[in-house]
């Protein structure tokens, strides 16, 4: 397996080599507030100027070529959840990443959806 581009700032033994909040300029609150652990995010191919983006933003764009949850992004990035949320909210505001509607997730799931999930679990 080829080393991932984020590996340079993560050391298995020592943990992150950069203090987590340094990645987000000390911000502890995402600017876009509706990201839950399970919210799905997906990068869209845009022609936007990426020169203002950090290495971590670009890494997220690469990870999210296929839909992933916020928690998966954080895990693959080796970053705390809040850091992943802040970085993702930057990208969502730029229009580079789209997300499932988190507010929809909070309403009680309908029978149809639950039946699909039940069938899916039985089929694995």
């Amino acid at each position, binding site marked *: 397996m080829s080393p991932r581009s984020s590996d340079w700032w993560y050391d298995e033994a020592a943990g992150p080599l950069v203090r987590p909040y340094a990645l987000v300029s000390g911000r502890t609150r995402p600017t876009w507030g509706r990201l839950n652990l399970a919210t799905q995010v997906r990068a869209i191919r845009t022609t936007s100027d990426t020169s203002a983006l950090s290495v971590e933003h670009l890494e997220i764009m690469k990870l999210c070529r296929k839909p992933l*949850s916020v928690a998966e992004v954080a895990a693959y990035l080796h970053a705390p959840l809040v850091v992943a949320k802040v970085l993702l909210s930057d990208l969502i505001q730029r229009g580079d990443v789209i997300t499932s509607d988190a507010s929809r997730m*909070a309403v009680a799931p309908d029978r149809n*959806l639950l039946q699909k*999930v039940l069938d*899916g679990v039985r089929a694995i």
Partner: protein
Amino acid sequence: MASVQSEELTVPSSVKIVVAGGFGVGKTTLVGAVSEITPLRTEELLTEAGTQIDDLAGVEGKTTTTVALDFGRITINPEVVLYLFGTPGQDRFWFMWDELAYGAIGAVVLVDTRRLDGGFGAIDFFERRGIPFVVAVNCFEGGHSYSEDEVRHALDVGDGVPLVLCDARDRESCKTVLARVIEHAMSKLDPAMA
């Protein structure tokens, strides 16, 4: 600007089931038994300064506590993904539970008959929030075997809460547990909405 997207990009819906229980009861084992990926670990930081601040300027000297969450995923179909989130084992991390439980379709409270008390906090949490849950008794080899009635009595859960015996290492057994959670959640739906 020319067309940016050649194909229509959709984002799947996600549903989640929370797997709760005391420290070392086998939550990550259960998640790993059914997940299509090796369980991932993500961490949340809690600063001593609490969650009321927007900026860390001036609090660099505060210590941070790390809370680890293990989770797995099951792709149901291209439109729906199920996530299984294990709760942090220690009770002092209750603050994470609200986000974990937000929008969850249901929960598993995994207990070990050697330490049934590890399930109390979780049962109380899900009851208060009206989140459908089942109690799954992880039957470790060498663990005491009790009757269902004895476990129900010890945990003070009524007949309205499904109780299943399971082996957290066994995929089929864990599938049964998840199926019971979903069935239980379906039984709680308002019949008028069906």
